[in-house]
């Protein structure tokens, strides 16, 4: 998937992946896509909840070798 910015939140725990995601999205313009990598298992549900509450679109959420990968489209 194409993306405009990548955020590596590996090793960070709640609520840092969400706070960093919010910050990274602020640097994008509407319609651009942010890729987030995280290791916090709680981030799977949290990213969904973040997207739902902020109106940004979670395009995909996958897991690969202990890492979680998210693609978030800015509202």
């Amino acid at each position, binding site marked *: 998937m194409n993306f405009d910015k990548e955020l590596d939140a590996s090793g*960070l*725990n*709640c*609520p840092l992946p969400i*706070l960093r*995601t*919010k910050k990274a999205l602020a640097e994008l313009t509407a319609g651009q896509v942010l890729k987030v990598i995280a290791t916090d298992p709680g981030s799977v549900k949290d990213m969904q909840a*973040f997207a739902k*509450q902020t109106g940004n679109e979670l395009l995909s959420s996958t897991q690969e070798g202990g890492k979680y990968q998210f693609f978030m489209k800015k509202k």
Partner: protein
Amino acid sequence: MKKLAIIATKGTLDWAYPPYILASTAAALGYEVQIFFTFYGLQLVRKDTSCLKVSPLGNPGMPMKMPFGPKWFRGINWNIPNIIQANIPGFETLATALMKQTIANNGVATIADLREMCQEAEVKFLACQMTVELFGFEHSDFIDGIDYVGAASFFEFAGESDICLYI
């Protein structure tokens, strides 16, 4: 915009986390947030966060595990009787140092970092002027950007909040 009002009343390292985690997260979700620091909660807005300590004494909910060594060693819960904890000088300082190492090992933010993120996200900090005086603090003991107010000012915001938490 939804509003979150928090009253922070505890002044230990462990209890410093809930208000700052919830406030920073709510701000990231688009909430307008205010935290009212009162009584021991004033410790959470002091310039020097090293005043925040954690005590396992009289706290049966706190696991005492070592943040270093092999996995089997880290897994041991050191069940130290209260009477011993109470009589070892510096036990609290030791427990605090171990807790800080555990926090760092787990990728959990420091209180100073979380607090800064709250301020960057425009979380508003209010401090109770009455308890500032009661405990003999000076405004210069605290970080910048705090409004010193009374209970009535807190209710101005809390009365219109969607969520109000007492921590």
